[in-house]
């Protein structure tokens, strides 16, 4: 009886120990997001009371959610990929050029997007995993290469007028029960774009994969301690390669979703997206050192980041520079929190 009791006491102790890293960061993020959004609802009113404002944030950031998921994946294995913004720009430019000049169909353009993403992921993954080059250097080169290629493909920004594509871009999925009555007394449905559905699917699939599959757990093992992962018989190189490949694939899909949202090709598209993706992952509780992270946290991280940007612009600080400064400040704060948590652990 006594023994049983002590065993029972040990279990919650273990649980509370588990709380420290990932979950603590995740809880901080969720709380900050809820407080921020509630605060905006109470003090700013304006749009924040309408559910559509929330859906608009989702619509605008579906691509960011997808690319951030890929980024988290790489960061969990202890790497980083700053080429995602460039890949997104390259994907939208290539798809735009294909759809407009070749009169091609939408399905092939999707294949192009996935192909570009996979190509970047495979090359960078090979260099990082098998040749053991620093991920940052590799993806920095990848970023500049993608940005340069974008202008080589086409220099001037332009809108796509392909009919099938425009129809797809305009597709709206109504969310039941979330609509509002407008000034004329008409009921306006709340809607999301296709990209949001894709983003949510990606989040759910990756969450399940990371949580309950062997391959998913391998990512954490490799990121946590490469040496012991190797000792456990995990194929470290393959796992790191896979992470970069998936990140590239998700950047390709994210690029297509981005393209679907903006409907144009431009060399300046998605500038700074890699930064936002890294910031979202970090805010969502993914540790830069690897081994710790949560896709759901990344999702909340994107939402927090975009909500703060919305708040900043709705209190009138809408000059372009404030967005950059707030994102950087937020990232800085979360990085320091992480660093403090890590140093306490050691």
């Amino acid at each position, binding site marked *: 009886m006594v023994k049983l009791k002590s065993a029972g006491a040990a279990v919650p102790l273990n649980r509370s120990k588990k709380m420290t890293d990932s979950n603590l960061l995740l809880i901080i993020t969720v709380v900050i997001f809820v407080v921020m959004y509630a605060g905006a609802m109470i003090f700013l009113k304006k749009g924040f009371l309408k559910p559509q404002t929330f859906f608009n944030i989702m619509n605008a950031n579906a691509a960011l959610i997808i690319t951030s998921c890929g980024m988290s994946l790489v960061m969990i294995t202890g790497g980083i990929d700053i080429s995602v913004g460039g890949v997104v720009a390259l994907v939208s430019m290539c798809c735009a050029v294909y759809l407009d000049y070749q009169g091609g169909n939408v399905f092939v353009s999707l294949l192009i997007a996935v192909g570009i993403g996979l190509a970047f992921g495979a090359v960078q993954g090979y260099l990082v995993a098998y040749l053991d080059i620093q991920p940052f250097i590799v993806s920095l080169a990848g970023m500049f290469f993608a940005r340069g290629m974008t202008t080589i493909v086409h220099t001037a920004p332009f809108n796509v007028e392909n009919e099938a594509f425009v129809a797809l871009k305009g597709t709206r999925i109504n969310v039941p029960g979330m609509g509002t009555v407008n000034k004329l007394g008409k009921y306006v449905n709340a809607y999301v774009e296709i990209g949001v559905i894709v983003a949510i699917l990606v989040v759910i699939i990756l969450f399940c994969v990371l949580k309950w599959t062997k391959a998913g757990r391998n990512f954490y093992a490799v990121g946590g301690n490469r040496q012991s992962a190797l000792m456990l018989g995990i194929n470290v190189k393959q796992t790191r390669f896979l992470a970069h490949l998936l990140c590239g694939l998700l950047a390709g899909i994210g690029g297509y979703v981005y393209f679907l949202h903006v409907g144009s090709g431009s060399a300046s598209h998605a500038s700074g997206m890699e930064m936002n993706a890294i910031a979202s992952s970090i805010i969502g509780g993914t540790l830069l050192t690897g081994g710790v992270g949560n896709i759901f946290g990344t999702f909340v991280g994107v939402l927090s980041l975009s909500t703060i940007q919305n708040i900043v612009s709705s209190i009138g600080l809408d000059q372009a*520079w404030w967005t950059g400064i707030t994102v950087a400040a937020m990232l800085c704060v979360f990085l320091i929190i992480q660093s403090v948590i890590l*140093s306490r652990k050691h």
Partner: protein
Amino acid sequence: MTVKKSAAASGGVADLFRKQIFIPIAALLLLGLFNLAVDPSFFKISLGNNSDGFPVLTGYLITILDYGSEVAILAIGMTLVTAASGGQDISVGATVAIAGSVILRILVGTGGDGTLQAPIIVAFLAACVVSMLFGAFNGVLVAIFKIQPMVATLILYTAGRSIAAWINNNELPIVTDKVFTYFGGFIPGIPVPTPFFLAVICVIITLLALKFTNLGLYTQAVGINASSSRLNGLNPVFIKWLSFVILGLCVAVVGLIKTSRLSTINYSVIAKDIEMDAILAVALGGNALSGGKFNIMASILGAYVIQFLTTTLYKFNVSSDALPAYKAAVVILLVVISAPAVKEKLSAMGKKLKKQREVA
């Protein structure tokens, strides 16, 4: 006997190969030969008069000397940061924008008519202080909070240009004073571009500092093994932090040159992608990007080689937006060649060849 001799000879060649400065020199020769073969007029230097009637040298080589000096100055700081922290600072372009913005703000003020409100030296010193503060900020994140250098500097990389625009309230002040243009152009009567002299001054100061202080030794020690250098009585936190502050100083000099060239500033374009050039210069100089041993002169030579490449590409009508793609290809090529896995394979292949030759 003969075998021994050939081994010794090949050892000599290998030594040359192993010398750090070999890589940038080889790259320079390669680029030079390429240009010589395609169009020898690349090397023509002519003496003409500029719009003010002073004699100036013109030609592609002078352009390289001129613009390469910016990268060379940054390469000094970047080499130290790389050696000490094992990472690179990617915020230098954004910090150049901040430094330039500070200089213009102090020189012209808001809504001024372009006449100088303060001496140039005061503006420059203020820019030095500001960019050293930003360097110190990066340094604190890296050294004290132990955040990877590239991620820590990513913060300024995003926010920097915004901060630069904010300093001047998004106005574009124009300096009308002639003296201000000397720093990025020519001093009357001297036909060589001023940035080159600024680079030489920076290099001399750095070399003196390395010779008469233990900075170089300590930086290498910290870069090779931070914890063992701490056990030997060094302060790795301070050394890492110091390297970022020194880079801040280099950034201020480049900010002065950049704003002087235009007499104004364009926040989103000034010093764009210069971080790539600076990192490339360090890599081309044969310095390990993961920290440790370094060679400043090799980095500086690397910087001029980068500019040589850029100018060559410009000459073939590559647009400035497409340049990064080519440079990225060069970076990848460089890191792949210097990757340990590839090196091993290459040396194994070399040994095999040697054996075959001996058998033959």
